[in-house]
């Protein structure tokens, strides 16, 4: 028992020290940003992110610093990660849209799937999961109530059908969102200029050139290489060090 209390105490103290360090680094990064030292600011934001902790504001500021430092790809990746945590944050979406406009992008993204994905992306995957679970629970609890109290059956019928339809709807949205999250990946090019090759070899021929900030669909992994697509007919291999891979399309 004494060991348990000691461990909890140590953890609590360590947590407070970590939080204080993080806040210090964050404020220092903000100060560097205000002074126009964007690369240094980005380094401090990244240092916090490397601890495995993240918040929408931290990722947002990191994206800003990378953009101002001229790293469009890293900025887009940061904004997209912030969007995963806070999909309805208008500031994140505005800056992401702004930086995307600066990217030389050959492949249009406004397909039907992207419009649907954009609509589903109004909520996080966890939010869809909780909504679907709530509707699911409510539906079955109402069904159970109708079994226990048959007299309430007629009155609860409409509500039960409504919650069942909600559960189906939220479940379908969750399924689509989960499928997109787990079955698709996007590679955001973080190198200032990269060349996709026709094979996963250094001496393979050039397939096409990509620019910093281009968002490519990941088709396959092979060692340190990723097979990516930049629209119909444009398929090539990039080194993983040239991109940041994010879940979803």
């Amino acid at each position, binding site marked *: 028992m004494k060991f348990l209390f000691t461990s909890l105490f140590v953890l609590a103290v360590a947590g407070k020290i970590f939080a204080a360090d993080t806040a210090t680094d964050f404020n220092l990064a903000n100060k560097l940003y205000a*002074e*126009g030292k964007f690369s240094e600011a980005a380094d401090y934001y990244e240092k916090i992110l490397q601890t495995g902790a993240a918040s929408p504001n931290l990722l947002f500021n990191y994206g*800003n610093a990378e953009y101002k430092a*001229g790293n469009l790809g890293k900025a887009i990746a940061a904004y997209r990660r912030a969007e995963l945590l806070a999909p309805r944050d208008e500031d994140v979406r505005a800056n992401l849209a*702004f930086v995307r406009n600066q990217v030389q992008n050959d492949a249009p993204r406004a397909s039907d799937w992207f419009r649907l994905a954009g609509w589903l992306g109004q909520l996080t995957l966890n939010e869809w999961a909780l909504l679907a679970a709530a509707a699911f629970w409510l539906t079955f609890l109402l069904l159970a109530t109708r079994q226990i109290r048959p007299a309430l059956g007629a009155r609860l019928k409409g509500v039960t059908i409504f919650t069942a339809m909600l559960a189906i709807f939220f479940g379908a949205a969750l399924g689509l969102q989960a499928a997109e999250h787990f079955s698709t990946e996007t590679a955001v090019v973080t190198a200032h200029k990269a060349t996709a090759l026709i094979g996963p070899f250094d001496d393979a021929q050039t397939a096409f050139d990509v620019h910093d900030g281009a968002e490519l669909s990941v088709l396959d992994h092979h060692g340190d290489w990723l097979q990516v697509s930049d629209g119909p007919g444009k398929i090539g291999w990039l080194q993983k060090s040239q991109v940041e891979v994010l879940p979803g399309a």
Partner: protein
Amino acid sequence: MIKFRKHIFPIVGFLFLAALGLIPSGARAASFTASLDRDTISLGESATLSLTFEGGQSKNVPTPDVPGLQIVQTGTSQNVSIINGAMSSTVTVAFSVTPQQTGEFTIPALTTDVNGQTLTSQPLKLTVLKANAPSPAAVASGSQVAFMQLSLPQQKVYVGQTLTAQLQIYLRDDVQNYGNLQFTTTPADGFTLGKSADGQRYNTQIGSRVYHVIPISFALTVTKTGNLSLGPFTANMVVVLPSQNDGGDPFMAQFFNQGEQRQVTLATDQINVQSLPLPDENVPTNFNGAVGDYQMAVTAGPTNVTVGDPITVRVQISGSGALDALKLPDLSGWSDFKLFPPTQKTDLSDQLGLEGTKTFEEIVTPQNTDVHALPPVSFSYFNPDDGQYHTLTQPSEPLVVRSAGATPLPVIAVNNNSAPQNQTPQDILPIEENLETLAQASPPLVTNPVFLAVQSLPVLAFLAALVWRKRADNLANNPRLRRQRAVAQLIASGLDDLRKYAAANQPDEFFATLFRLLQEQLGERLDCPASSITENVVDEHPVLRGAPENVLAELRELFQLCNQARYAPVRGTSELNSVAGQFEKVIGELKDLET
């Protein structure tokens, strides 16, 4: 019938001869010859090469390959002749031979296989002479149906300079029509040929004849220094001249004389040009190779920005010269700015692509607040018209650069730090001051086993309620079962009462309870009212007749004990407990009784 005979004999004869022609001629000697229709032609003209196969056909007609000659197969003809009853077949394959340069060419001996025989032709010589423009005397005499002249505005040029060459095709006034103009050679040593454009056609008097003039302009760019040559250009065209055999009536001839076609070869003189290098003196330090005559305009905006904000610097260079080759003026002095890759666009204002405007857009971002002006932009070029370098300079423009975090953007303050609506943002929104609660990255809930397991709880609750509902419904619809369960509960509690009365040595209450329990249990088993159960039922009820005799004996005994208790109630606790045990045993056996 006679008419039929008159026609049938020639047909049969023809078929007979044709059949003879189909007979393999392997037995006869075949031959293979090659010939040219002319052995001397001018550059720009074409000769015809004929490969003739007699006595058979070649399966693989050879195509000669001679450097400097363009040889293209144009057709095949066959001739069958009968001389003194002997039939011979000749197949001729024709090629068009067009020289690419002057000189002596040899078409080598060709080898082919004809009906199993390997045959070889003799080599042929073709002399290609330089195409010469007609002499001025010939032109003035009016003997030339068509001729062509090439001219350049100047014979002294600079490397990198662009200029316009003029080509004029003259057609004599009796040329009714013309077409199929094809340039066969356009030598331009030290020049790059650019776009061409047709000019306004006109008529002019030369000597005693009027000529129709077709002017063609084309752009040239000088690519090297030294003595350069342009031409001679050669071309072929087909002209239509009045037929010499017009039937004699001039009036009718003007309506019905369709004229005769004639192919003519056109050639220009060669023009020699001296190309000079750009001067080494007074070369501006920022000169990057632009040759021509230009003007420059520079605009930049916005000029009131925060550190890191993008500023668009637009450099427009207008004028004449090799616009495609123009490069963005040197911006190496812009060290306080981050420069992004520029974009460029060329808007041409003439058909030859030598005049227009080239626009460069450079995005720059100030890196600190010490920047107070956009540096001047300078562009230098060499003007071949006056042979001098010129420098155009756009003076520096004042610039206000604020600290990125010092002053929030007004639009952000108004909109509570949210994205402005219905207007194109000029920059990203500023950073957030608060860190918010940090969270460790965790996998989504849908991959959490606990979350998934918890989702089974409402299903299990519903299934439990469903089972309960089924059981309740079954009970409600089965009075026998309901009585069975009620009696079972009654027996369970009654046994407790019996043991309690036995322990308290209360025989009256004990036997009264025992009798009631016997009535209830037997009534339930026999499906009759409990009040109707007496000892006689044990012997009389048909259901109990199938019960084991020991069970019936014990039932009788229990009924008798109950009856005796009314008359001899005094019994000990142990005896009462024994009776209670006997009752419990009988009850257990009665439950197995088929009813």
